[in-house]
């Protein structure tokens, strides 16, 4: 039976997808409401498939995909998203995803992609395009947490780093994106499509 770890921050949608996969004979061994919990679960369970919603709080689906692709060889990632823009799909491919399913698609397609990827088929073959990304993984992590409205000491706790390190990342982020304030950082990052519009003020599940 195919083992899946599921990550989506909308608890209702997550519960519904779980019900769908159960009915199709797919084993959801763990689920998570934020990207860090998701990464942790995938590392612990080493499932056949990690199903990652793009817009999870704390660590988005794209970053989770990158980290899983490079550190958990047993697991293949399928990205789930509201949006099917070519840029997002390309980003998922570059990050190492094996499949991309939009929420417009029927459940039948999601199950089909899961089964094909589990059987060894890459549903997102590499193309010649390149994805231009100026930020390092840690900088992307810090950026998302800033967008979520978290202060440096909170970010330090979440990332298990010193506040000093967090402030360094923040300073580099602002220099790279040529801004002087965190508020401008958020605006420019959104304009350049570097954030997934994670939700400030929302508690993680």
């Amino acid at each position, binding site marked *: 039976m195919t083992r899946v770890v599921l990550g989506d*921050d*909308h*608890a*209702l*949608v997550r*519960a*519904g*997808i779980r*019900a*769908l996969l159960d*009915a199709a004979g797919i084993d959801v061994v763990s689920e998570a409401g934020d990207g860090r919990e998701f990464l942790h679960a995938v590392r612990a369970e080493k499932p056949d498939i990690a199903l990652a919603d793009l817009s999870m709080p704390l660590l988005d689906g794209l970053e989770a995909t990158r980290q899983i692709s490079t550190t958990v060889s047993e697991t293949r990632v399928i990205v*789930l998203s*509201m949006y099917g823009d070519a840029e997002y799909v390309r980003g998922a491919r570059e990050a190492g995803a094996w499949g991309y*399913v*939009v*929420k*417009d*698609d*029927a*459940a039948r397609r*999601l199950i089909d992609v899961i089964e094909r990827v589990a059987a060894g088929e890459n549903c997102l073959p590499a193309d010649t395009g390149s994805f231009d990304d100026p930020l390092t993984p840690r900088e992307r992590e810090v950026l998302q947490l*800033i*967008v*979520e*409205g*978290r*202060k440096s000491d*909170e970010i330090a706790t979440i990332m298990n780093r010193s506040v000093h390190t967090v402030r360094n990342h923040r300073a580099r982020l602002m220099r790279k994106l040529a801004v002087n*304030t*965190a*508020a*401008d*950082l*958020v*605006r420019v990052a*959104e304009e350049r499509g570097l*954030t997934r*519009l*994670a*939700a*400030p*003020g*929302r*508690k993680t*599940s």
Partner: protein
Amino acid sequence: MALRIWIVDDHALVREALGSLLAAQDGIDVVGATSGENQDVARIEAEAPDVVLLDIALAGSSGFELIPRIRARSPETRVLMLSMHAEAEFAETAIERGAQGLVSKAASVEELIGAIRSAAAGATLPVSGLLTPRERDVLDAITAGLRDDEIAERLAIRVKTVDGHCQRLMRKLGIHTRAGLVAYGQRLQSQQDLA
């Protein structure tokens, strides 16, 4: 007697996922699931479900438009809006148009079931966290990148007053930084475009 539910959401996967979830609950039957086409209203009238779960953001139109049409054709049917976010402003608008309230997709299954039962009984769901018009003005200005002195000038108030509004905004929204307010304001604006 089981509650009869109809789901309207233009994302097929979400529609099927919610349908699967609700069908598994005792005392709930899913009698229809559609994507928000024009003919839905007639089909809903014919089926007369107890509650319609209606997504705010439907392709090509907004869920808000469907509420009064459903209520007019099928007065026994209650409408419960679903949203990716649960901003109080949208809940208010939903209720004004004739819905019983709004539930976030980030809510738990238990909260959704509770909301469905309340809606079916004709109750209006409580709304919390509303922003005042002045607080909305300040939020819009922050989102546009204005500094406090610029906001003060634009709204003809003192800088100290601007700061006071900021503090209240952050407290009401559970956000701790200016950067967070900007991101929230951006999200709100992109959702406004759908309403």
